[in-house]
């Protein structure tokens, strides 16, 4: 027997309410993220590296700030500058709240990237960007922590080489909790949208 239109409509409504309730249950009071929500799926921001001023820093030094973590290297002529230039535009679009956010650019090329080179590099993009370098072991440990990967490609002669690396941007809240994952091809609007939400969340009391 074919159900009448009002019955089907009612069934649909019940289903929709059910789905909404379920979603509400699972997500709690989660903001409407546009990027990939990784809350609870990746570890907190934790590392011990050297910043571009030569100072030893840890993940805890950035508590209170929303952190955008990106792996790259300074001899990367295209994808890294593209990503950092886009993040600079994102920071500009955020306006004053961007002062509560930091871009952490972690080198996957510790053999060539020294703090002074990293300093010149990150500051060419954004004043809220920080370059981080570490021993090959510490760098690898941080990459592994976030299931990121990098591979040094064969020498192209004259000592030049490329490093293939994960292109994701990891976004942490002010408590150092991993919250979102963005790809370099993510819409700038979406990154700005989610960072506004994340910056509004404040620090857990």
């Amino acid at each position: 027997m074919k159900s009448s239109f009002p019955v089907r409509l009612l069934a649909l409504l019940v289903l929709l309410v059910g789905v909404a309730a379920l979603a509400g249950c699972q997500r709690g009071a989660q903001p409407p993220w546009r990027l990939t929500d990784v809350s609870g799926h990746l570890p907190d921001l934790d590392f011990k590296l050297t910043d571009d001023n030569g100072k030893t820093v840890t993940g805890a030094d950035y508590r209170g700030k929303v952190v955008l973590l990106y792996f790259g290297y300074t001899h990367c002529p295209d994808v890294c500058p593209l990503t950092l230039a886009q993040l600079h535009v994102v920071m500009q679009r955020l306006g004053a709240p961007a002062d509560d956010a930091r871009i952490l650019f972690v080198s996957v090329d510790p053999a060539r990237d020294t703090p002074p080179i990293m300093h010149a590099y990150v500051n060419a993009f954004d004043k809220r960007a920080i370059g981080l370098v570490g021993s090959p072991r510490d760098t690898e440990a941080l990459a592994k922590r976030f299931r990121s990967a990098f591979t040094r490609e064969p020498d192209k002669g004259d000592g030049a080489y490329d490093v293939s690396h994960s292109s994701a941007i990891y976004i942490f809240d002010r408590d150092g909790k991993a919250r979102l994952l963005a790809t370099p091809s993510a819409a700038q609007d979406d990154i700005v949208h989610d960072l506004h939400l994340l910056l509004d969340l404040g620090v857990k009391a």
Partner: protein
Amino acid sequence: MTKTFIALLLLCATGTAFANDAASLRASGAWIRVMPANLPAGGYVTLENTGDTPVTLTTASTTAFGHAMIHRSSTDGGMGRMEMVHSVTLPPHASTAFAPGGYHVMLTDAVKPLAVGDKVPVTFTLGDGSTLPVDFIARPANATGPTD
């Protein structure tokens, strides 16, 4: 007589083809991302092929840098990587963009430090041996295009 005619025809055909490749291309929005500390820089341009046949672009050269190579970046599968490209085919009646994240001219070992606003002449060599000179404008590291 016939031989002369064929020879003339051949000459014409070669002559036309020779002029064609570079003549059918229009370059626009050429810029270089200037990096600090003499780090490798990317060069970007839009090339429009106004002709009826595909044009092959084989090499790039410039006196402003020690090396100029055509590369292509990709972020397939979440990995950012680069590969050297031996030729790029520019389809007829279409524009091909050398843009961040894709095709680019990788420029290394600047002869002298570039300043924002400098013009850098780059010459592309095409499949038929003709050449296309293009002036690239030096732009800041955090630029996202030729004019932003």
